[in-house]
């Protein structure tokens, strides 16, 4: 890393997160002034106006330009999604234990006034209005959580940057104008399309304005700059911006800058997170190769541009409600960059830029971008070794996705072979064909499997709320045998699968009606062709998944019930129910808890009995969810269905806090297992056994992703032979066991404990949370503890 980038990083780390009211102010004004216009037009105009008016800045270290709010690490406010939490929490927002944001009294007062206008108009209120009383009641129990999706946009999407770079703003403007010209004014459908096209033209104009404003700002600063070297850089940036304000980029610099502008502006349009770059090494690779060849750029310069980009991305902030903050620990934006994999023809796609991206991300050690490497069996040993040497740095990146399961899985869904080969990670571990896939390939809605298991033992009654939404499936004291319990589980979990989709339908409808994303739709195929925005079914492909939490706990609980209650009878049925209700109180309760914990197999130890129960119990959910449709079904996209997903981010901690004691010997309120990883401290046979257990899950069906975090002691990577062993282990997991994903935390327990005690000293410590990395000090204390507790494999 250059000295300048180190300075920029230090500055960014010591900058406090703040709240910026500009976007909220401009959006509110434009909405007010244009009330007769359809929503899609108002949103187009509001974005255009924001891009025309918002504060732009250039930091002295910047080599790549762009911003989403008036200062680095300032979070814009999106009142059209939700205001309830803002009104309730804004006064205390600088006092939060996790992720505080600073705001002056004036800003707080202005936001409250802005919120006043939005009362009764927000996404959240509209979504609730669409929920039936029964669903509203069910949602209130938090067995299913959809708050993230009612208080912000969908996100989890990548636009078609390959095409965007080929056409530029002008090319897209022509496409939209041509589509507009072909409409039939007597058609109801075309009337709707017309509104979308007009909005698209507005946002394209806004984009040009924004880029041109940056050209002007850089030019003005260049003229005022005393240092000739910096003046030249500013002049060059001005030139780059001017070149791409309407026309398509011609060089690596221009192509990177255009990609970054789009990435940032999309995050002004919507606060849906996991807005991803797709395959950055692929669409920028040819510009890089050409410029290297002609000598227009050298490797070091290109690397510094990338480093500057990563700082830019880390300066983007999203302020969430305090409850949603617990689910997304560390304030992540999950801006994913994917490299590697095979190309559309099936050959190794790794290029010079792939290595440079890997290297630059490894040097910066930031939380953004969230870097994913697409593994495939033909990946060169050299590239895998490079990836391992970045893993060794211990900030949790890169994560791996596996072409060997994702591509066949996509074919199974009906994606074309070339598109399947062109997939990228979105956000954390989930995948989509960038630029052709709808929102939320996974995310934003959580089903707590352990709440469902507990109520399965109690004839459908949820002990936390006292409610029974599906009574009559029997209770632990009445089940004839273990199979009867599994039958009841199937009925219950399928009921909650349908309920989660029922909630989704309401929320998706509200999102479609109130907050369509015009810019994102413009750059996603085939919204222009169909004249539909993404929520109306504009995307070529559109599958979604929610997230299921507590996978390992489910299997561990079921096997303990099977073995200790039903088979051996060493634990009585009523005895267990009582112990769960009173959280294993008293010495006898503790003995019973230890029995559940130590005398039954645990997921993650390559034990077929428990592993197969995880597979079976999860399949009951999958069978049902695969039958259900999202709101775009039959409206254009290929698919329109659901699949399961385990990328539960940090929600295992808050979800655990809402579950009482469980039959795996887990105390009430403690975290659930994260993602699809084993429960903390229960994988005792090392990483190969964990891989074997995970490998038994049907990755081609659990297409929202199978998330596996492994923590290795730094000692296991000391020698070149050790690193080669890690590479071999990763290859085996992917080639032979068909794993979906793995990522590593290589930070010793001692370091984490020290960082918890003295956060200031470790302010740059980045750790893997679950599918993404976060600054350790930004995590809530209970999430910090959860990360410390995860089993560290060593020898």
């Amino acid at each position, binding site marked *: 890393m250059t000295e300048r980038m180190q300075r920029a990083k230090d500055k960014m780390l010591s900058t406090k997160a703040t709240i910026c009211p500009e976007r909220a102010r401009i959006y509110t004004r434009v909405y007010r002034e244009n009330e007769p216009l359809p929503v899609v037009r108002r949103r187009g105009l509001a974005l255009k106006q924001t891009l025309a008016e918002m504060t732009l800045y250039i930091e002295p270290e910047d080599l790549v330009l762009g911003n989403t709010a008036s200062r680095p690490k300032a979070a814009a406010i999106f009142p059209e999604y939700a205001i309830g939490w803002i009104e309730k929490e804004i006064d205390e927002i600088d006092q939060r234990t996790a992720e505080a944001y600073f705001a002056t009294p004036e800003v707080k007062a202005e936001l409250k006034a802005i919120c006043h206008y939005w009362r009764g108009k927000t996404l959240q209120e509209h979504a609730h209005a669409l929920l039936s009383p029964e669903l509203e009641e069910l949602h209130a129990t938090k067995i299913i959580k959809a708050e993230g999706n009612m208080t912000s946009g969908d996100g989890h999407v990548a636009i078609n940057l390959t095409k965007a770079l080929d056409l530029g703003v002008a090319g897209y403007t022509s496409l939209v104008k041509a589509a507009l010209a072909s409409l039939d004014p007597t058609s109801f459908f075309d009337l709707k399309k017309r509104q979308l096209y007009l909005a698209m033209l507005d946002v394209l104009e806004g984009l040009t304005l924004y880029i041109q404003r940056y050209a002007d700002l850089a030019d003005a600063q260049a003229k005022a700059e005393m240092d000739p070297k910096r003046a030249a850089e500013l002049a060059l940036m001005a030139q780059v911006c001017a070149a791409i304000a309407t026309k398509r980029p011609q060089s690596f610099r221009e192509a990177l800058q255009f990609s970054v502008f789009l990435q940032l502006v999309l995050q002004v349009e919507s606060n849906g997170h996991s807005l991803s770059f797709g395959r950055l090494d692929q669409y920028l690779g040819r510009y890089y190769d050409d410029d290297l060849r002609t000598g227009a750029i050298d490797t070091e310069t290109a690397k510094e541009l990338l480093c500057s980009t990563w700082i830019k991305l880390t300066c983007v902030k999203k302020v969430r409600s305090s409850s949603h903050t617990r689910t997304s620990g560390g304030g992540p934006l999950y801006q994913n960059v994917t490299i590697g994999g095979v190309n559309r023809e099936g050959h190794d796609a790794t290029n010079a830029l792939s290595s440079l991206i890997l290297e630059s991300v490894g040097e910066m050690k930031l939380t953004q971008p969230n870097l994913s490497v697409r593994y495939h069996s033909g990946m060169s040993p050299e590239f895998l070794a490079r990836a391992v040497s970045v893993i060794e740095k211990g900030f949790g990146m890169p994560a791996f996705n596996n072409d060997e399961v994702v591509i066949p899985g996509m074919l199974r869904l009906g994606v074309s072979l070339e598109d399947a080969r062109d997939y990228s990670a979105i956000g954390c571990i989930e995948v989509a064909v960038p630029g052709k896939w709808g929102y939320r390939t996974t995310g934003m809605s959580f089903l707590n499997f352990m709440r469902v298991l507990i109520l399965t033992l109690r004839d459908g009654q949820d002990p936390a709320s006292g409610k029974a939404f599906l009574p009559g499936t029997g209770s632990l004291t009445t089940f004839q045998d273990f199979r009867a319990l599994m039958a009841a589980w199937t009925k219950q979990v399928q009921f909650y699968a349908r309920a989660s989709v029922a909630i989704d339908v309401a929320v998706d409808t509200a999102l479609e009606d109130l907050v369509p994303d015009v810019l994102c739709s413009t750059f996603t195929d085939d919204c222009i062709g169909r004249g539909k925005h993404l929520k109306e079914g504009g995307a070529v492909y559109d599958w979604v998944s929610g997230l299921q939490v507590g996978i390992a706990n489910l299997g561990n609980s079921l096997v303990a019930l099977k073995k200790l209650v039903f088979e051996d009878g060493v634990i009585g049925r009523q005895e267990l129910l009582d112990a769960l209700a009173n959280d294993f109180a008293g010495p006898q309760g503790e003995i019973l808890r*230890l029995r559940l914990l*130590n005398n039954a197999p645990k997921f993650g130890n390559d034990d077929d009995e428990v592993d197969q129960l995880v597979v079976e119990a999860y399949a009951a959910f999958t069978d049902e969810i695969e039958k259900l449709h999202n709101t775009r079904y039959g409206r254009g996209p290929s698919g329109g269905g659901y699949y399961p997903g385990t990328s539960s981010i940090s929600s295992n901690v808050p979800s655990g806090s809402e579950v009482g004691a469980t039959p795996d010997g887990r105390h009430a309120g403690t975290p659930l297992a994260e993602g699809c990883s084993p429960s903390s401290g229960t994988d005792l046979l090392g990483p*190969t056994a964990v891989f*074997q257990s995970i490998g038994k899950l049907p990755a081609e069906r659990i297409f929202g992703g199978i998330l596996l975090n492994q923590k290795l002691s730094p000692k296991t990577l000391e020698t070149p032979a050790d690193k080669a062993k890690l590479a071999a*282990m990763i290859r*085996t997991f992917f080639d032979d066991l068909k794993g979906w994903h793995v990522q590593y935390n290589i930070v010793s327990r001692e370091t984490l404990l020290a960082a918890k005690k003295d956060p200031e000293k470790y302010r740059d410590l980045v750790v893997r949370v679950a599918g993404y990395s976060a600054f350790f000090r930004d995590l809530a204390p209970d999430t910090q503890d959860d990360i410390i507790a995860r089993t560290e494999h060593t*020898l």
Partner: protein
Amino acid sequence: MKVNDYSGGVRKPLVFDVQRYSTHDGPGIRTVVFFKGCPLRCDWCSNPESQKVELEILFDSTRCVGCRACLHPQFGGAMHEVEGKIQPDRTKTVPRALAAVCPSLALRVAGREVEVDALVREVVKDQAFFAKSGGGVTFSGGEPLDQPEFLLQCIEKLEALGVPVAIETCLAVESAVLLPFLEHNIQWLVDVKHLDPQRFLTRTAGDVASVVSNVRLVSDKADHVAYRVPLIPGFNDSDSDRDWILGFIASLERRSLGPVCVDVLPYHDLAAGKYHQLGRPNPYTRDRIGQETLEGWKKAAGSLAMTLTVGG
């Protein structure tokens, strides 16, 4: 030579652990099978539960939650209560079923009886990892060659499955026992603890002359042999011990090609807890080996053109 001290009859093969993802007991990623029963029983042994050829109770009273499940008559009094304290009765035979009874894992049973096919099935679970990393299965102990027929059957089955095998051995066995193993392609990890008969006898239960002749035999006949020296303070860590041991290894007639590989395993006292849990005195407590000593070994090995690693 005292091979083992069990008396007559057919004994079931015993292992006390199967450890996956081992990266320091031979090349690549390995699964290590630890046999129970060892003729040498060195005083510094870091796996004291590996020595006896019978099931043994490891008991950590601090973890006992007093559930009394282990006192059930079906366990034949292997655990009993003395003055209100639950503890092992080491005069009694340990029943197999005792292994699964303790909820808090205060009580564990070292050793389980195994059959060839079941053990092979268990150890090849990670075969895919072996194949990609150049690893395999390592038989260790205890002393694997102390159960030679069983070991040979395992090795033959593994060879048929294409799984590379290593044996970690002290070679304190009859030479005749070794011969059939030398017919197989095995990575040998051979202990060289000392060459001095007197010294050897004071701290182990073995006869150095036969060990030495076995080391020569294996070196002469096997394709892949590496040497391991447990470096024990007060036993073999002096400069003259070092020169003697390394000099001996250097002098061996070797069939293996390439440089001589010596792995030094410095003494540690991590087994103290296990001695306590076995109800035995810890026969050897010393300070750890200093960095200076290790440097001396590295230097000496270097001057003999040997490759020396520390700790596998």
